[in-house]
């Protein structure tokens, strides 16, 4: 089982003719993703990796119905692309670009809420339901089916942890990248809620980092509403205050968003917090065997 997407999810790639767009279209097809069309204004009629290219999202869905879209457009054009996908009726939008202006992100999220759609990102690796479909840029080989749901604010760190899990024969149901920006479409709570309902998910791994309050909010939610075991890893223990650590959201401001505050809140909610990425697999194994 999985959440958000599965082998039946029909996907459109916006910005399919670009370098990243075409490369990852090939990678997604290899993984088994059901890509039904691409969009690149001015390049309609071409094809990329055997996928037909259309002038607009509207034209693409006229040709073939779709459920989701993944965007590989440069940040200044991402708002236009995301609003188009939402207006054309797509219900899952994955925003790969980084550096989308905050005010643009707020407008995208607002329109998505009106349209009852889910936005993953921006500044995300996307999401993958292991063994059936991926809408994102993650390396294919680490995402093998298993009983653990993963939700993460960062990309490469998430691969690192999922990689350690795979080495220890622990696979995943769905892995979701929330995105590293300050305004993102989904928070830990939204994804935890889905994992709790998913019969295939037996335990959840949460990969967080300093900055903001999403981990603290997740801790409160886990304490009140999540019965499945949760294991966490938090990045940024050594980060100095007031410095932005790469991600726009990863900054300790006015004493808030510290590693200590997050680790403490999660521990109090019964979450096992791993000291190192390598400690995640044994903690997950223990959780799965009910210890």
């Amino acid at each position, binding site marked *: 089982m999985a959440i958000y997407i599965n082998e039946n999810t029909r996907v459109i790639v916006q910005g399919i003719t670009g370098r990243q767009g075409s490369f990852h279209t090939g990678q997604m097809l290899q993984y088994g993703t059901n890509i039904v069309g691409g969009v690149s204004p001015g390049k309609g009629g071409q094809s990329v990796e055997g996928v037909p290219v259309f002038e607009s999202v509207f034209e693409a869905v006229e040709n073939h119905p779709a459920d989701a879209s993944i965007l590989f457009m440069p940040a200044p054009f991402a708002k236009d692309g995301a609003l188009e996908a939402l207006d054309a009726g797509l219900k899952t939008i994955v925003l790969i670009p980084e550096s989308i202006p905050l005010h643009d992100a*707020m*407008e995208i999220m*607002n329109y998505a809420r009106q349209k009852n759609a889910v936005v993953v990102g921006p500044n995300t690796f996307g999401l993958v339901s292991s063994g059936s479909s991926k809408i994102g*840029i993650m390396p294919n080989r680490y995402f093998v089916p298993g009983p653990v749901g993963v939700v993460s604010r960062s990309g490469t760190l998430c691969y690192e942890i999922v990689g350690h899990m795979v080495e220890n024969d622990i696979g995943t149901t769905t892995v979701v990248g929330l995105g*590293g920006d300050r305004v993102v479409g989904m928070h830990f709570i939204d994804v935890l809620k889905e994992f709790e309902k998913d019969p295939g998910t037996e335990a959840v791994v949460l990969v967080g980092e300093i900055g903001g309050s999403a981990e603290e909010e997740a801790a409160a939610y886990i304490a009140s509403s999540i019965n499945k075991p949760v294991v966490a890893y938090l990045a940024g223990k050594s980060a100095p205050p007031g410095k932005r650590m*790469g991600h726009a959201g990863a900054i300790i401001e006015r004493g808030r968003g510290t590693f200590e505050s997050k680790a403490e809140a999660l521990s109090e909610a019964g979450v096992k917090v791993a000291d190192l990425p390598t400690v995640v697999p044994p903690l997950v194994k223990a959780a799965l065997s009910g210890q």
Partner: protein
Amino acid sequence: MKLYEHLGKKLFKRYDIPVPKSKLVENADQAAEAVTELGDVVIKSQVLSGRRGKAGGIGFASSPAEAKEEAARIFALDIDGFVTETLLIEEKIKIEQELYLALTIDGSSRQPLVLASLDGGMDVEDVPEERMIKWPVDVTLGLQGYMVREICRRMGVTGELRKEFVKFLPRLYRMFRELDAELAEINPLAVTPDGLIAADAKVTIDDDALYRHKELPRISEKTALERKAEELDLAYVELGGDIAVMANGAGITMATLDMVQHYGGEPANFLDFGGGADVERISQSLELLLGSNPKVLLLNIFGGITRCDVVAEAFVRVKESKGIELPVSFRLVGTNEAEAQEILGKEGIKTFTSMDEAVRHAVELSSNS
């Protein structure tokens, strides 16, 4: 990008937000001159530190002689590591009451958030939670009249002041939206016989939106290397240790630093060259790091959108052109790993597959050298 107070106030004026009369000066003599024009004045250091007031960066004067003395005192101060380059000399306004007003971007609600309180002029953290009114604005609706009236009701603002406030807040909101601000904070917002006046201005513009605000000045509070990194569009932070760290992705870079510290080492920096970098960009990152004169170089590459062979090629290129003399601990796995091993193998460069081993090796190297 944080703006100096005087720049924030210049923007306020453009949006019809009243600010005190003022002069911007660069030395004590000019400060003295300004007093003859403005009368009783407040002298404010133009630094980006939030602790300006506590550090003594604000003074008062009623005569040119006093102004000269105060200005000289403030120019000599070290304010949180910042030195004052300019002073804002402002007419002293008659303050009857101090309010707090700010617009910020709220990650939880994904909306602009109005923060308003009758308790202005103090540290915002010291304002009791129930005295701070918070109103998320639906960004599609914009700030409507009823919202401002409701904020007033909750604050307990009535009568003449309410009339003023209902005019004032929409101007700040318009500026916040039009200029892609992350923060527009006025503390204190002064109630005076002449109406509401912004006595301070803290404005931060979203770096990612600067491309569409060519008219705004560019301000940087970074070190020379950090500025160089910014030009190259790299995420780089200096940390003061001796192990230079380079990785791909913010989370993994942070985790690498944490692990260095966990094993007893001291990271020199945070450098994330991001996803999908090409040879040129990775070479530039490496050169930047070598320029910081670390004792050990630690590279932690987990290739996803980043290709390992591209990283290997960049490493060899820099090694050949600039020479890499210092000890290196190199971890490399993921996309095109085999091709990368081949490139590096020819040069006799060994790599680790585990992050844990690579970090421990780097810490060992740093304690030996």
